[in-house]
């Protein structure tokens, strides 16, 4: 029996050893193909709607709710904040390409100067500190509002995350990938356990969503939160559910995970901010 198991394990090693050394582009192709094969009736772009692409009942409720988006006020505030000059007279628009309009699809991006992954939220705070303002708390509040506004100006743009030919960028991507596929927490779940292997199945009455499209609609206004939250705030919720300790906002592991996850959704449209249960 043990020998049989060993043979099986080493065989599966050979099989999976191929994607393990695959390029990010190949990873992305097989990742997207996995979901499109599994849900062949779903249009690729519809994966941007997260769980509502898979669960019609939930989608009906959500669409009814979306007639009056619960985040309108917060989004207006985000726009006002975005346009309010800093004490030194500069503003957010001065820190971004195209004055910060329609740039969401390019984040996270790898910064070759610092050798780090820069998420949109980190870029927003970097902009503030560069102009003598205090950094805002990550994950929710004003930062999420500004980020939501910036996403709203990018609606329909297609995600185009780049992994430059820089060893550090590839390492960041690989680290994010490893985070995604590793089991963690006392309950011993990987992201993939729910969102790849059991996608579309139900945990109690909740449909497990596809990871293809996970990042496209963030920041998200969750009824449960009664506010906007960033993708990393959502990572916290998943971690808590599996009894893993959430990380600090913009922790390296979180940024790398966001880099990997968003790269996997390359080609999908920006459709944030969106509302969720």
């Amino acid at each position, binding site marked *: 029996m043990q020998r049989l198991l060993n043979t099986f394990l080493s065989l599966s090693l050979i099989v999976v050893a191929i994607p393990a050394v695959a390029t990010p582009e190949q990873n992305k192709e097989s990742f997207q193909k996995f979901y499109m094969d599994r849900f062949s009736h779903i249009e690729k772009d519809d994966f941007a709607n997260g769980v509502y692409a898979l669960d019609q009942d939930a989608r009906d409720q959500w669409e009814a709710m979306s007639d009056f988006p619960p985040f309108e006020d917060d989004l207006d505030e985000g726009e006002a904040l975005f346009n309010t000059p800093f004490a030194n007279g500069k503003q957010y628009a001065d820190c971004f390409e195209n004055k910060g309009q329609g740039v969401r699809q390019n984040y996270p991006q790898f910064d070759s100067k610092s050798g780090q992954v820069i998420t949109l939220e980190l870029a927003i705070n970097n902009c503030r500190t560069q102009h003598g303002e205090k950094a805002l708390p990550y994950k929710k509040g004003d930062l999420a509002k500004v980020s939501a506004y910036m996403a709203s100006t990018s609606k329909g743009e297609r995600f185009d995350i780049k992994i430059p030919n820089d060893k550090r960028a590839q390492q960041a991507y690989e680290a994010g990938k490893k985070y995604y596929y590793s*089991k963690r927490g*006392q*309950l*011993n*779940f*990987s992201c*993939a*356990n*729910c969102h790849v*292997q*059991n996608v579309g*199945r*139900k*945990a*109690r*009455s909740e449909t*497990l969503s596809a990871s293809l499209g996970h990042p496209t609609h963030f920041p998200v206004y969750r009824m449960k939160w009664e506010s906007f939250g960033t993708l990393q705030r959502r990572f916290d919720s998943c971690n808590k559910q599996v009894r893993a300790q959430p990380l600090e906002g913009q922790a390296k592991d979180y940024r790398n995970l966001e880099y990997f996850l968003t790269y996997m959704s390359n080609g999908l449209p920006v459709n944030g901010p969106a509302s969720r249960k």
Partner: protein
Amino acid sequence: MLKKTNTLKLLLSLTLTTASLATPLFAATGKEIAFDRKKGNCLACHAMDDGDMPGNIGPPLVAMTARFPDRAILKAQIFDATKRNPISIMPPFGKHEILNDAELEKIIDYLYTL
């Protein structure tokens, strides 16, 4: 075999009562532990008994005696399912101390009534 198991259970329960000050006076039943979201939370993934809105990640828990004639195999699966399959989604309830041994035994007793 049966006798040995009983001795073991006795020994374990003795150990547990001395070792754990937190043992409640009125212990929960196997079904209560299985349904408790903070304990077994079996319904998250398995249809079973009269559980409301069960998940469908794992197989329905029915005909357990026929499917697991060997109690030790059933226990090993609940204790640490990743031993047989390293990527199993099932939490290793025993290995990771999500449930203690007395709770595992109670759940197994209950499962055998299904």
